[in-house]
């Protein structure tokens, strides 16, 4: 008799569909079309989903936003990039978060995410035009926000890790001023090509 989670995971792998989640069990899925992996966890009234963005997808997206080739390459290979969805699904109150509180956990220790302000400093040095920087600001996941029930966003989070790196992500939020946290285990940065 196969365990329930194994069966569910197998279906996800085959169909590439996200499953409804319960408790704090992360669900790992692989898109059968392009090999892109995603991880999703639902816990304490919030959900977090990270999906790999392939370097070529990063190149295409930021080239279309007006970035020069060198800056595009810095984004595509100088960091790993995930499409990120964080939701207040059913927390009892509004929640607040600051990505500066989130931590990447690896065998070498923990480190912060690479935040929008870090990138904007880089774009300032490179004299990236203001409209391009504005597009960048809204493409990245907001650094700080308050979500009432039902609020959510989709945006990119970036991590100062080599392509292909494995890490766990400790994500943190506050509900009524009280700190809450959970860990999304086993996340892996995209490689140059997924398949």
């Amino acid at each position: 008799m196969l365990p329930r989670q194994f069966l569910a995971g197998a279906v996800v792998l085959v169909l590439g569909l996200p499953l409804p989640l319960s408790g704090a069990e992360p669900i790992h899925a692989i898109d059968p079309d392009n090999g892109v992996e995603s991880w999703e966890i639902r816990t304490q009234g919030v959900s977090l989903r990270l999906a790999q963005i392939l370097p070529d997808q990063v190149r295409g997206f930021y080239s279309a936003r007006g970035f020069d080739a060198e800056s595009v390459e810095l984004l595509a290979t100088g960091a790993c990039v995930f499409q990120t969805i964080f939701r207040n699904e059913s927390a009892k109150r509004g929640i607040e978060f600051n990505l500066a509180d989130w931590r990447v956990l690896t065998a070498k220790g923990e480190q912060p995410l690479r935040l929008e302000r870090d990138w904007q400093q880089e774009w300032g040095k490179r004299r990236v035009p203001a409209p391009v920087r504005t597009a960048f600001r809204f493409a990245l996941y907001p650094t700080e926000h308050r979500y009432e029930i039902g609020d959510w966003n989709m945006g990119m989070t970036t991590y100062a890790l080599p392509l292909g790196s494995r890490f766990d992500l400790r994500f943190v939020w506050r509900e009524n001023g009280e700190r809450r946290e959970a860990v999304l285990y086993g996340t892996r940065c995209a490689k140059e090509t997924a398949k």
Partner: protein
Amino acid sequence: MKPAVPFVLVFALMLLQVARADSTPQTMMAVPDKPAAPDFALKDADRKLHRLSEQRGKVVLVNFWATWCPPCRREMPSMQRAWEKLQGGNFEMYAVNVGEDEDTIFGFTFSTGVELTFPILLDRDAHTIKAWPVVALPTSFVIDPQGRIVYRAVGGREWDDPQLLRQIRKLMDNK
């Protein structure tokens, strides 16, 4: 005969998927103190000027979006359905595109397969959005007939959801 088992599993999975989509709360939260909505005057793709303050007496849904933002794209057809249900009364809807040009927007609206008939306004230099409390796209606001921000929704919504329509209609009735 074993094939029925995987089929049942797949069917159950599909139902769970639908159940999950349905269970996503479609809500707008009240904005404390109802601040005055920052005025703007923006042109649509036909270069017609729209000024928010000229809509006093109407309920206005102001939605900030971009074509490259997946949840923004996904909610557009539901905005059209809501528009079709609410227009004609004291209701206006503005979809304010941030930072893109007419050709890009036209390419997107054509690709939706849905004719979007509400005004799509161009904030090419992202000047207007800076005056609004927008941290991420999409973010939408409902403005009451007195020109105050009364509701905010962060992230995409199904705008023709009965609960959301009820909240808007109640404001329209309290003109």
